[in-house]
């Protein structure tokens, strides 16, 4: 996912350097205050660690291998700000010393991989882990989810950066000067691989590392969860995937059902607006939903008076810009990811059952 030089226009690169700069500044101030003189050795060693794990080949289901960015692991152990700095340093060494990732595109690579991925991974991990004990399987699930979402967010931002190039930068004949594909091509092309393979690589490694640290070195997980306790009554988790299977199942079902819920027709009972009482079509729906009790001819006076008092910024969950193709894509993607997780669960259960019967 490292963008080489030549894919993005210089103005996009400059804008992304400018966008990354405040994050670097704030991260440096925050981490300096927290670590003081420990800053230099801790960040150096963790940047080296991030560099090395980007080299690791990870075995994926289906016999292929992939690479992880390690941003989620760094964010879970160091926190988002420390992770931003460590991954940025690793990316700079990759660009300057190993020619991996462009020099003009360094700001963009940091924005996508170091900044966006670290922030979302930290946020998702904290949200999903809540105040659960350090050694709970919920933390393994939270880590896997953080890994999966962080790399997919990076990929999405990268695809958007690629996709806007042909809109703004063309030569006199109309030929795109930089990345040639429009958003409609760049986003699916980038996301299909990440939603399926790369996302799982990151999820598997992040969840696996957290499961390993729970068994051997829970103190490393305590840095970003100082209030979490170790619950000695919990069983020792052996495998990240099996321990969290029920949580993944819940997530898959939720992802499949959410888009269906949003696409369901009609309005929820009792959640009528003043205009619903005057529209003959919605009047009929209200009547059907209320055991054939006809709705009053006029909207209740209080409802009519108060309905203009507050206008929600996003009426009916979907403003005009959301009633468009992109939302359709997002909902379909959610649905698809849910199905993929569900399919992986079914396959893993079936292969396990086969192994047991073979044995």
């Amino acid at each position, binding site marked *: 996912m490292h963008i080489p030089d*030549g894919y993005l226009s210089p103005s996009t690169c400059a804008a992304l350097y400018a966008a990354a700069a405040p994050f670097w500044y704030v991260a440096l101030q925050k981490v300096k205050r927290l670590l003081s003189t420990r800053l230099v050795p801790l960040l150096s060693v963790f940047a080296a660690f991030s560099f090395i794990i980007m080299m690791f080949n990870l075995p994926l289901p289906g016999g292929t291998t992939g690479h992880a960015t390690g941003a989620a692991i760094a964010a879970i152990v160091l926190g988002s700000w420390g992770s931003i700095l460590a991954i940025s340093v690793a990316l700079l060494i990759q660009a300057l010393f190993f020619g991996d990732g462009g020099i003009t595109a360094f700001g963009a690579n940091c924005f996508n991989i170091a900044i966006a991925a670290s922030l979302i991974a930290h946020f998702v991990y904290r949200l999903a882990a809540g105040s659960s004990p350090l050694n709970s399987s919920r933390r393994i699930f939270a880590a896997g989810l953080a890994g999966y979402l962080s790399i997919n967010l990076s990929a999405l931002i990268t695809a958007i950066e690629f996709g806007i190039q042909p809109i703004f930068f063309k030569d006199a004949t109309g030929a795109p000067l930089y990345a040639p594909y429009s958003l409609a091509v760049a986003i699916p092309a980038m996301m299909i691989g990440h939603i399926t393979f790369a996302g799982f690589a990151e999820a598997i490694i992040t969840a696996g590392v957290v499961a390993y640290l729970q068994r051997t070195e829970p103190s490393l997980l305590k840095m970003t969860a100082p209030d979490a306790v170790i619950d000695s009554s919990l069983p020792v988790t052996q495998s990240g995937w099996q321990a969290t299977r029920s949580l993944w199942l819940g997530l898959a079902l939720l992802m499949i059902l959410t888009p269906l819920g949003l696409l369901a027709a009609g309005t929820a009972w009792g959640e009528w607006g003043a205009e619903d009482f005057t529209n003959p079509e919605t009047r009929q729906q209200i009547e059907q939903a209320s055991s054939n009790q006809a709705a009053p001819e006029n909207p209740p006076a209080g409802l009519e008076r108060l309905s203009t008092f507050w206008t929600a910024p996003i009426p009916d969950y979907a403003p005009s810009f959301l009633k468009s193709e992109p939302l359709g894509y997002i909902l379909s993607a959610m649905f698809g990811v849910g199905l993929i997780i569900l399919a992986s669960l079914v396959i893993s259960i079936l292969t396990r059952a086969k192994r047991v019967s073979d044995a």
Partner: protein
Amino acid sequence: MPEKTRRRHKNFIEKTIVGLAEVAEQALYAESLAKADGLLQKLDARVKVIGLFSLIVAAALSKKITIILSLFGLAIVLALLSKISPVVLGKRIWLSAFLFTGAIALPAIFITPGEVIYRLPVLHWAITAQGLRSALYLISRVETSATFAALLVFTTLWTQVLKALRTLGVPVVFVVILGMTHRYIFLMLQTAREMFESRQSRVAGTLPAKESRRLAAASVGVLLSKSFYLSNEVYQAMQSRGFRGEVYLLDEFQMQKRDWLALAGFLSLAILAFVLG
């Protein structure tokens, strides 16, 4: 005599060992080239950082394929003058960049809307002039920038790059972190390689996928805890030597006449490329 020789796929441990070894090998190779007696090797690191960066920017700004290709020609001349053979650049830089970017650029030839110049005989896919130009822009720009970046990497020792960054205004704390990171990358490369080699030496037969994944996660975990202990030890060592958070570096650069000349040359070529489009 073996009854049947079957090509065995490398498992992920072997692949990772090879990957880690390649990084170390490339670094050693770059270091040996940086010590050669060529044009760029003799120049001040600051001149190279500014000069080659401005040429990369010139290649990025250009809207004419001829200009980008001229810059690519300039990169080859600089490589030859610095005793870097085009075969080396071809193997290490051009081929991989071409395969990666070529695969990405290929569909653009067909799907970019524009004037149709050729149709494939059987498939009837139309090649457009605009599509072909956009693929050429992308590939030539990527190859040119990658060659300039490689010239910096192959002709400058990392310590010199760091000092150049420092004198060019990068905060000192970043420069120190970059220097130490580089140092520990090699230590960890070795540690990771030893970990995988020792594991590989105990593997008989094929490692099941589930076990492989567990092993990969455990290896990252081990490396993570080793990193943490290492950073503590480094911190204590730094403190025992009087480190109080302040960092000082020796800046011993001396610009000579040829450095000024080279800087003027790089910048005027970059500006010329920009003016010509």
